[in-house]
């Protein structure tokens, strides 16, 4: 089946889950990645049992945040 991953069309095996896709795509720091499936955000706990289907579109979004205290680089 064909799915779209980060805007790129790819061939994927039937039954592929989001968790497997994250592993296949070598997504760095997956614990801090938000996944949208067809513009809907998927809870991390649902990654292992969320099966992708023909035409699905998946985006990986890194958590982006930070803070002011404890500046260490001079």
């Amino acid at each position: 089946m064909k799915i779209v991953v980060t805007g790129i069309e790819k061939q994927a095996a039937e039954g592929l889950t989001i968790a497997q896709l994250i592993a296949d795509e070598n997504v760095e720091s997956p614990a801090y990645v938000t996944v949208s499936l067809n513009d809907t955000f998927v809870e991390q706990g649902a990654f292992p049992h969320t099966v992708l289907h023909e035409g699905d579109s998946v985006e990986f979004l890194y958590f982006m945040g930070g803070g002011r205290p404890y500046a260490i680089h001079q």
Partner: protein
Amino acid sequence: MRIELRRIDFDAMVAYAQAQLPNEACGLIGGIICGKTKYVKKIYQLTNLDHSPEHFSLDPKEQLIALKDARSGGLQLIGNWHSHPSTPARPSEEDIRLAFDPTASYLILSLAAEKPTLKSFCITGGIAAAEDLVIDNEYRTLG
């Protein structure tokens, strides 16, 4: 990596950050990469979900909108930015700890002095390295 930013975009970033005071402002950076230079084409001003003068978190929903906007315009998200309202433009321990994208440029805008200061960093494996940031009226090396 070298980064080129037009002054008009820098000024817009400063204006937005000043409007968010006393809180930190944040956003994303859309652009193109040619060789070892990133050309900033669009500054995205996002909501700081923390609404804090000491912390920021980008809104994932707005991230997704910005991502699609950038892609539709032939751009890619090449980094993010946030302001430090009262401290220098250098990454904090928390900035470094929460930098998960090794390909991104992390721009920090300091409003601590009368003249705003912007610096860019690549953060990989817990190490922040300054990038060569050029701010000018036009791109210097883009044809």
